[in-house]
């Protein structure tokens, strides 16, 4: 099973059906896998904060959801986290494919990725960096259960160590 299949399997096991996303190369197998499975409701969003809002509304309506985004998309959602997800105690599941490290060619991605963990820490949001297919299912499964049980969001950062990173980006390295 690929990391993406395994991830989707764990979402299913936890009744997480709504996938709201802004596309990213590394996330393609997750997005395509969800789109090919009638269990999931896939909604492409135009911005990441919009996707966060939709997942928040769905949760309150009784539908569990996850937001998929790239590192630069995370930089757009600080206000949605600080004024919606965190204060309203909404257990949103956020998945961020990590760029800006381990072979990044775009300096803007490097800079924006440095803002991610400090932002999460400032908001006291639980986050896990997933680096390994062997430990990923347990981390994701237990953390999703913890999120819904404790009424708190959780963030999974998909390291290039797990996903292999973006091949197009890797090809630009000298």
């Amino acid at each position: 099973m690929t990391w993406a299949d395994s991830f989707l399997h764990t979402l299913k096991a936890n009744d997480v059906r709504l996938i709201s996303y802004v596309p990213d190369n590394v996330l393609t197998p997750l997005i395509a896998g969800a789109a090919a499975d009638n269990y999931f409701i896939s909604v492409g969003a135009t911005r990441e904060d919009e996707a966060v809002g939709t997942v928040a509304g769905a949760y309150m309506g009784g539908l569990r959801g996850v937001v998929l985004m790239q590192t630069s998309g995370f930089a757009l959602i600080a206000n949605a986290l600080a004024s919606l997800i965190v204060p309203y105690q909404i257990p949103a599941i956020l998945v961020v494919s990590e760029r800006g490290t381990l072979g990044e060619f775009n300096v803007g991605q490097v800079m924006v990725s440095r803002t991610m963990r400090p932002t999460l820490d400032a908001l006291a949001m639980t986050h896990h960096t997933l680096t390994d297919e062997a430990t990923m299912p347990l981390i994701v499964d237990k953390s999703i259960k913890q999120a819904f049980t404790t009424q708190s969001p959780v963030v999974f950062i998909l390291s290039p160590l797990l996903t292999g990173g973006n091949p197009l980006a890797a090809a630009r390295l000298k």
Partner: protein
Amino acid sequence: MAAPTIDAVEVKVLSRADLTKRLVAKLTRDEAVVGGIGNTNFDLYAAGHRPQNFYMLGSMGLACPIALGVALAQPERGVIALEGDGSILMALGCLATIGMVKPRNLTIIIMDNGIYQITGKQAAATAGSTDIVAIARGAGISASQWVRDENHFETLIARRFDAGGPVLFAAKIDDKPGIGQTVRDPPLIRHRFMRGLGTGRTSALDE
């Protein structure tokens, strides 16, 4: 404010508080209402709290995305997003998403005063060239309409909100501030909204 002419029809400048009261009076099927930040949700709160009301205390621009999420989660329930023109200008992309997803149980009502009233009445793009209804139609929310007057609004909302969507109604409103002040307790707002939608945890603490 002079009465603007849109779609070759003169549009009356209306009152947000009055329109909100008219809307709430029409909600007979426990419809969910998501009130956008600021005056929009102050007037929703002032129109009389309902268990199915959600009040935003931040996240400007996300009333429609939140309402979309509720609509997807509960396709049999009518869901209404109340939003200001400044807020929707910040999040025009969500109209494209809603036009693409086409949730039949979603209605969007835009209160358009052409200003950022709450921050000091600075002019918004809607005061000039921007037509929110034209944008919504262009995004695929094809039945969208400007509200011509109070009677027209009553006609537009005399419908079931769980079908026939998505649709956007925009009203030109005056520059009055909101008349209420929403309780500022986000977990309580979320919990009570979920109880209103039948999704909240129940315990002896609620008795």
